[in-house]
């Protein structure tokens, strides 16, 4: 039976879809602490596509690779609950301030240490930046083919993957050789739910840093269950050129950030009362805006 080595790239993001009024501090900076951190939605679509391939080829292995602060280990636990085999958290202050290119470089260098990979699957884009750049840039860094906007993996054969792509004006079916990087659209099927047995099994999965913080000794447990160890890689675990990391390695710089200030128009404020709505419609008809 054929088996594939699949890496899912996932990111922990602030839930920008539900930004409340207290999300911005008085000085105009973002109050990250009040925003819930979630599994980037399209990365879940990516995980589902990986799981479907594993359903078909059960010997396949799915590992999650995520880059972020320590708490991003949650992403790997979430992946384990839903069916991934393991994961690696890439975390180091040296990565702070990375733009998409420096991020892709770091992720690419980590992937180079992960052995022979058949498929790298990621969400099309993350909701905190919406750039859709990291997938293609990782592919370029690895010299791999990329196939973006994937809605469905139709067929996996020995050396090829056939996918349906959802483009803005249509659909395309493409047959691509492996290895490759795929990015998956939000229009793809939702990720399956957590599995209760897997939650029981993996809720104790921890990184070494988490263990140290919790002052717990899981050594015995890990000796018995090595799959509960979430690998944690720092910059020292991968080969890097410091000039390509973090702020230094980022060609783009943020020059200014402005808090959004609304310039108020002279608005007519009306209620839902019949006479007020009628008066408005009459005005709009008279000004030939409508009719």
């Amino acid at each position, binding site marked *: 039976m054929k088996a594939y080595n699949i890496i899912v790239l996932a990111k922990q993001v602030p839930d920008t879809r539900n930004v409340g009024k207290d999300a911005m501090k008085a000085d105009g900076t973002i109050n990250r602490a009040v925003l819930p951190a979630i599994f980037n939605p399209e990365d879940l679509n990516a995980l589902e596509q990986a799981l479907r391939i594993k359903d078909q080829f059960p010997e396949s292995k799915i590992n999650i690779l995520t880059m972020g602060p320590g708490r991003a280990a949650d992403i790997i636990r979430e992946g384990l609950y839903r069916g991934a085999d393991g994961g690696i958290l890439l975390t180091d202050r040296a990565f702070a301030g990375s733009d998409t290119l420096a991020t892709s470089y770091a992720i690419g260098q980590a992937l180079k240490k992960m052995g022979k990979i058949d498929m790298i699957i990621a969400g099309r884009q993350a909701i905190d930046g919406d750039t859709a750049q990291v997938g293609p840039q990782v592919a370029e860094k690895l010299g791999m083919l990329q196939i973006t906007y994937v809605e469905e993996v139709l067929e996996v054969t020995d050396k090829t993957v056939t996918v349906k792509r959802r483009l803005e004006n*249509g659909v395309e079916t493409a047959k691509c050789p492996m290895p490759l990087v795929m990015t998956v659209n939000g229009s793809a099927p939702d990720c399956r739910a957590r599995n209760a047995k897997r939650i029981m099994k993996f809720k104790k999965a921890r990184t070494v840093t988490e263990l140290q913080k919790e002052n717990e000794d899981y050594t015995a447990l890990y000796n018995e269950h090595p799959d509960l160890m979430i690998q944690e890689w720092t910059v020292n675990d991968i080969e890097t050129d410091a000039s390509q990391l973090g702020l230094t390695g980022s060609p783009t710089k943020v020059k200014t950030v402005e808090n959004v200030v609304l310039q108020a128009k002279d608005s*007519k404020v009306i209620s839902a009362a019949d006479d007020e709505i009628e008066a408005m419609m009459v005005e709009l008809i008279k000004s030939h805006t409508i009719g």
Partner: protein
Amino acid sequence: MSSVFVYCEIEDGQVADVSQELLTKGRTLANELKCKLEAIAIGSKLDKVGDQIIPYGVDTLYIADDERLFPYQTLPHTSIVVNLFKEQKPQIALMGASSIGRDLGPRVSSALHSGLTADCTSLVIGDHYDKKQDKNYENLLYQIRPAFGGNIIATIINPDCRPQMATVREGVMKKEILDPKYKGKVVKLDVAKYVNDEDFVVEIIERHMEKSKVNVKGAPIVVAGGYGVGSKENFKLLYDLAEVLGGEVGASRAAVDSGLAGHERQIGQTGITVRPKLYIACGISGQIQHRAGMEESAQIIAINTDPEAPINAIADYVITGDVAEVIPKMIKYYKKNSK
């Protein structure tokens, strides 16, 4: 002085709207920088694209014409663009934030180690002083875009790497032909020098493109719904109003994400940009990413139960009330008074 470069997308021999818009913007930037505007068209049977592209004020159009180059594929198009950029060394490169530009742009930027800013809503030339290095940069491209859920507007620059790359969505910039008789030259590239046979690894088995049946962009009146519309039943009211007024229905991202409307109707930074004569925002709070796609509407009506909704600040009429109550009344009083 190195040029401003635009990658032109071609479908069925026609230059995409977004590329025409970028050519117009590119001409403006080139004038300001006193440099040439150049463009590249990659595809098959491109004999006639010069007539479409040069009038935007393009000084040099490079054409890579080979039957294998249509439809778009990542590796061959990247290879041509990267090799041409290495030769021509443009200072600025613009692409559509389309499914092609967002596939090609990051790959090219990675290969050239040049920065790329996605989904810009404004591009401006300006200077920059770097305190750390005590260095002045003149005539950089300010790549301006909302970020972080639309709560901030970021100006991104690319001080040291070239080209400075940006993608822009369709409809954000305006397209305008500079001179139908503009004199630009066409350079046909020897495709074999720019791309290897091994780059053609993807087999496109089937391809089905269609112009979207929904034309929100061209509608004179847009009735747009947000998460606050609440239900599919209420959303139907928006269709009723749009039909009566001769308009189209649009939606905010929140409404699309929650399944109230299809992606093709999404208005905003990551959707389409509209400039209708009347925009009716129903149950839309009005984060900047949404406003980026509609704030140039001639007149705006905001219907919201929240009197503090940000959208109200840019509305001509603010109706504080429930969409389900207000819309039927608008239909009723339109019908009563329009004859």
